[in-house]
């Protein structure tokens, strides 16, 4: 491997045949696909043909770091898992931090590709160059936290890092997550479900080798200031944290409440970030190589949930708080802890439960349907009980919800799909479509389903840099540029919370130079980002996705929001179509189909993709 920062090697493990192969990272990958999700998307493209079911042994899940993991670059100990998503059928990935990514790099690998299906529940232990597939039947039904503790004890080293699934993953909840360092998760897209479908309980790693960079001395000098910048004025993540958005959003009337029926929440004060910080946060901790430290860990000291521990950010607080009408921080902490330990994505869990609550309040579900739960908005006990049942897949109702809001709504019928708040099957994040429409466009074009972290386009609305109540063909550029930028970030991989410490993006390119030895400009990285994102889109096209799936749930077009700030706020279909046109045009994709054009793919050197998707 010519470029430094990479190990130049990855593991290719077939669980069916119990075969472990050590492979060389193709030389051109680093210069075309950066790392992280770039390598993951390329792996999926090369290995998952049309019609492969996400839960079949033919699906391939791969774990990757980028060149920065294990180096001094701030906020870089990250890894991703990438596969075809069982929740959406699109490319699926999530990114997690903690201590896992750097450890994997030090074990000597840029990534691990997992195929097939083990005949019984198994885990993989990577101990530098010794790789074993081991029996995990004794871990059946264990939570992610128990699994981590047991494996560290069993392997007799507390410094071993573990990424595992809980019972939700084992029992194929479609939005099951992968957990490491207890509070860090690959949450979105059901990657934990893919692990479960392979009888793959955990990946444990011990790495003792050095990570080699091109210019360590200069890097050591450069990062000193960056660590300081991580604590700068704008870096509120490490102080009050993202939960302060609860009151900010409530004030702005963009706090999605009761399954997006309202944009303000009467109980907002009770679940505010300020209150949480004052009363519940025991400490703010960090991931490896992070000078920001954003992990607000709540420890509940008294009452019904005494002893509960939960790491809570804005999205989790919102999804299991206001969205479900719940205004009790102790209950939200309990709900988050259940999601973390049983192994489900907090956002998908909250949005699915909120959908069920709306169905219940509308009389579509009776108490009999819900297996005895009174699922009114605000009923924290019922929410908590339901989350536990979903994670353990107990009872028919919870089983159905474990399929995700889209499939559950399709099964339920009665137009409940109109208010299942998902796109392509992925439950949406906290930025409501009707009152943050640039955000909505970014959620809809996102190749993994409704998620804010693939373009960050909601920020234009949040800052009121655009008219957030309308759309036109100029917004596509904002979204597409954001997608390419975030694809670089997710491929390098660094934490999005560090973006404010690089007001000049050339600094990132400079860090790339110091780590890899390749002298490039940020634009070169952006070009690679565009290529990666486009290949991800081609993966979706291969699996049947077109323009048709880039639409919002009907609620967004048909139910205007009215309150003291929002007046008849609704997404207008003609504007939406124009906005999509604008996006595809800017991307140089076909407007009618939403599929990349042949010449566009050729420009990106993706000729084989053009041939494969038949353009």
């Amino acid at each position, binding site marked *: 491997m010519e470029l430094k920062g990479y190990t130049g090697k990855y593991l290719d493990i077939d669980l069916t045949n119990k075969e472990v192969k050590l492979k060389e990272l193709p030389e051109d990958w680093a210069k075309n696909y950066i790392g992280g999700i770039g390598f993951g998307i390329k792996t999926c493209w090369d290995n998952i043909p049309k019609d492969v079911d996400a839960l079949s042994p033919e699906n391939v899940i791969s774990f990757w770091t980028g060149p920065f993991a*294990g*180096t*001094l670059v701030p906020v870089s100990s990250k890894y991703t898992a990438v596969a075809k998503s069982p929740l959406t059928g699109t490319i699926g990935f999530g990114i997690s931090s903690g*201590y896992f990514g750097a450890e994997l790099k*030090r074990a000597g690998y840029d990534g691990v590709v997992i195929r097939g299906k083990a005949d019984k529940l198994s885990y993989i232990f990577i101990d530098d160059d010794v790789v074993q597939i081991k029996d995990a039947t004794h871990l059946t039904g264990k939570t992610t936290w128990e699994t981590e503790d047991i494996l560290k004890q069993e392997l007799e080293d507390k410094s071993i890092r573990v990424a595992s699934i809980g019972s939700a993953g084992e029992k194929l909840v479609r939005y099951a997550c992968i957990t490491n360092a*207890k*509070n860090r998760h690959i949450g979105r897209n059901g990657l934990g479900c893919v692990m479960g479908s392979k009888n793959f309980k955990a990946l444990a790693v011990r790495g*003792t*080798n*050095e*990570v*080699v*960079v091109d210019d*360590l*001395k200069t890097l*050591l000098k450069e*990062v*000193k200031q960056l*660590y*300081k910048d*991580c*604590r700068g004025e704008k870096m509120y993540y490490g102080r009050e944290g993202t939960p302060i958005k609860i009151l900010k959003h409530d004030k702005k009337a963009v706090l999605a409440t009761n399954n997006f029926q309202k944009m303000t929440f009467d109980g907002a004060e009770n679940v505010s970030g300020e209150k949480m910080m004052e009363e519940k946060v*025991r*400490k*703010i*901790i*960090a*991931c*490896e*190589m*992070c*000078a920001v*430290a954003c992990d607000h*860990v709540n*420890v509940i000291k008294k009452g019904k949930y005494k002893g509960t*521990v939960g790491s809570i950010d804005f999205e989790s607080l919102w999804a299991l708080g206001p969205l479900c009408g719940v205004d009790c921080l102790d209950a939200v902490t309990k709900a988050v802890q259940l999601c973390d330990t049983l192994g489900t994505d907090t956002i998908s869990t909250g949005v699915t439960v909120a959908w069920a609550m709306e169905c219940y309040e509308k009389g579509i579900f009776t108490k009999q349907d819900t297996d005895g739960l009174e699922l009114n908005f605000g009923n924290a006990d019922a929410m908590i009980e339901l989350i536990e049942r979903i994670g353990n897949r107990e009872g028919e109702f919870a089983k159905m919800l474990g399929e995700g809001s889209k499939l559950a709504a399709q099964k339920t019928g009665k137009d409940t799909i109109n208010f299942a708040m998902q796109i392509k099957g992925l439950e949406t994040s906290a930025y409501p479509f009707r009152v943050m429409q640039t955000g909505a466009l970014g959620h809809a074009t996102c190749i993994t389903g409704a998620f804010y972290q693939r373009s960050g386009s909601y920020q234009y609305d949040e800052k009121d840099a655009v008219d957030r109540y309308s759309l036109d063909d100029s917004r596509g550029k904002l979204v597409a540029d954001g997608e390419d930028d975030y694809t670089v970030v997710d491929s390098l991989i660094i934490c999005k919370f560090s973006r404010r410490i690089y007001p000049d993006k050339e600094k990132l390119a400079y860090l790339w130079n110091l780590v890899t030895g390749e002298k490039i400009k940020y634009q070169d990285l952006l070009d690679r980002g565009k290529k990666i994102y486009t290949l991800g889109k081609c993966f979706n096209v291969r699996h049947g996705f077109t323009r048709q799936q880039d639409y919002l749930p009907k609620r967004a077009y048909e139910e205007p929001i009215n309150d003291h700030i929002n007046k008849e706020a609704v997404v207008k279909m003609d504007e939406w179509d124009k906005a999509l046109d604008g996006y595809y045009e800017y991307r140089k994709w076909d407007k009618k189909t939403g599929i990349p054009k042949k010449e566009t793919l050729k420009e990106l050197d993706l000729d084989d993709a053009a041939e494969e998707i038949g353009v």
Partner: protein
Amino acid sequence: MQEKIIVCDNEKCTGCRICEYVCAAVHEEKLNPRLSRIRTVRIDPVFDLAMSCRKCDNPKCLDACARNAISQDPETKLISIDKEKCDGCGYCVDQCRFGVLSIGIDDKVAIVCDTCREKNDGKPACVDYCPKEALEYVAISGIDDEKVKKFHHKVQENIDKK
């Protein structure tokens, strides 16, 4: 002379391991926290601490070494390892009450904090780089001072409240 040691405020320490990375980079010119002279530990869920040599009087590590590879500077109290004599048996690691010695993963000899005496302009790099200012390089008497100050602040606050 009052010797100084590196102390860590466990309420400020976030467990980021930057001290370990920087220590290894400064001493070994390698990126590998396992080559660090300072160790971080997290006890779930939120207790974090980083620790390096405490410069004990009558250090156990010194007594434990069967090859006389360990010595202590009578003035600075710094522990040094004679790399030629050390055979990496690990008995000093075993005997240290604080777990701050380790056997280097590369050349298999004991490594221990030297407070960057000859590196990083003589300032301990871990303290220099700690993003949360959790680490301090202070005289042992200074630690008491800080505690007394904190106590007095608390008293003052209580008086102010009333």
